[in-house]
């Protein structure tokens, strides 16, 4: 059991859902300069293969639908990291009509990186923090999603409601 825990924290396959500006900080994190592969973290091609979902920035309602779908396809245990202030409170899009403000209301988030935009050092730091959390058994956000499934679905349905978001109102 301990061995499996160790393996889970040392091998994280991530899918970076590059929505916002955050996407631009990931290539340097992956390649020679910061080299995140030394921590066993590599990008994967599909949600079915990955353990870690990176939401790199603001999410429009349209993208949120895809994110929820990708998140639900990932096998458990799965982890989510939210990048930048946009995922925490809307950031500079706080008054936009089609951007969600709090990612936490729609999918459970294990860890946020604040900043607009977080530097690769901060991203690597977050990965190490996540590894520590998995070691201690604290990265349990995916359980929240299963337990409070109705609540999350209700929140999602609220924003997916086309009537409410239409400009006519």
């Amino acid at each position, binding site marked *: 059991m301990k*061995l*499996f825990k*160790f*393996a*889970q924290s*040392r*091998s994280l*396959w991530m899918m970076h859902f590059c929505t916002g500006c955050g996407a631009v900080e990931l290539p340097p994190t992956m*390649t*020679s300069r910061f*080299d995140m*592969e*030394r*921590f*066993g973290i590599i990008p*994967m*091609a*599909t949600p*079915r*293969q990955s*353990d870690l979902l990176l939401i790199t920035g603001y999410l429009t309602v349209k993208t949120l639908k895809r994110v929820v779908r990708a998140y639900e*396809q*990932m*096998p*458990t*245990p799965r982890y989510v990291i939210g990048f930048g202030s946009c995922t925490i409170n809307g950031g500079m899009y706080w008054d936009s009509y089609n951007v969600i403000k709090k990612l936490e209301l729609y999918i459970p988030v294990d860890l946020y990186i604040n900043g607009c935009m977080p530097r690769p050092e901060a991203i690597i730091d977050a990965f190490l923090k996540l590894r520590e959390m998995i070691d201690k058994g604290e990265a349990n956000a995916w359980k929240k999603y299963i337990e409070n499934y109705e609540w999350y679905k209700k929140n999602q349905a609220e924003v997916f409601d086309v009537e409410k978001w239409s400009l006519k109102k």
Partner: protein
Amino acid sequence: MSILYFFLYLLLVTIIGLLYMGAARKITAHIQNRYGPPVYQPILDVLKLFAKKDTASHGIMHSLGPVIAYTGIAATLLFLPLGNHTPLLHFNGDLFVVLYLLVVGPLGMALGAGESANSNATIGIARALSMMLGYEIIFFMATLPVFYHYGTASIYRVIQAQGAFPDWAAILFPISFIAGLFALQGLMGEKPFELVVAPHEIASGPMVEYGGKYLGLLQIWHAVGIIVETGLFVDIFFGPQSILWFFAGTFIVFFATVIVNAVMPRFRIEQAVRFYWGLPLLLSILGILQVYIWR
């Protein structure tokens, strides 16, 4: 008794294959001026995949596909001698059995990935089967002179018929050896023939819908495949070796493919098949001519 022996053998080969995969990642990282993950990283990856709590399946065949692939490659081990060590089964003609068993892996993947009905998986499978038209022919034609020269179609006897250093088939048939190296690159699915998996293009092809335990099984399938493919090559061309030298030989061959992999871009499918039907085909024909003139 021999069943127990076989499972130990399988376990050993799986672990060594995973370490080879780790070494490949480390070597690639160093070529790209990075540190890279620890050598045992693929073992951790596999453990993690097997520790997944739930895994989506798209039906019976989808679940059975990786099992068929792994069983096929494990059955190949029955016939594969590790250097001068006797395999569990050997008879005249086992080469053909091995060549057929090597196809079971891609076929298992094809059956499994087909059921997922993902278009990326279908493209990957189509590419895998078309690629075989390229490298299988070359691989067979490159090894043909060796088997013809020693008058047997048993891998074990071909090894025993070769002697120590200067009597290696690689030295007797250098042209076929080079053609075989070309074929090996495609057989292992390394760049420039990586188009079956092609993560940036068709999202890892046949594996696109696999996750969790199935993906773990596919990883160890790949690991055993590395040892079987390089091992077959070393057995046929480098004659009888002690077990340590055998693994050293497979590692050297693997190292060569990894280095080519690290610096090459990827072919398109028609370019890959056309490439195989050019120079490597010519070389393998010259190799056959050589043994024909010689006799």
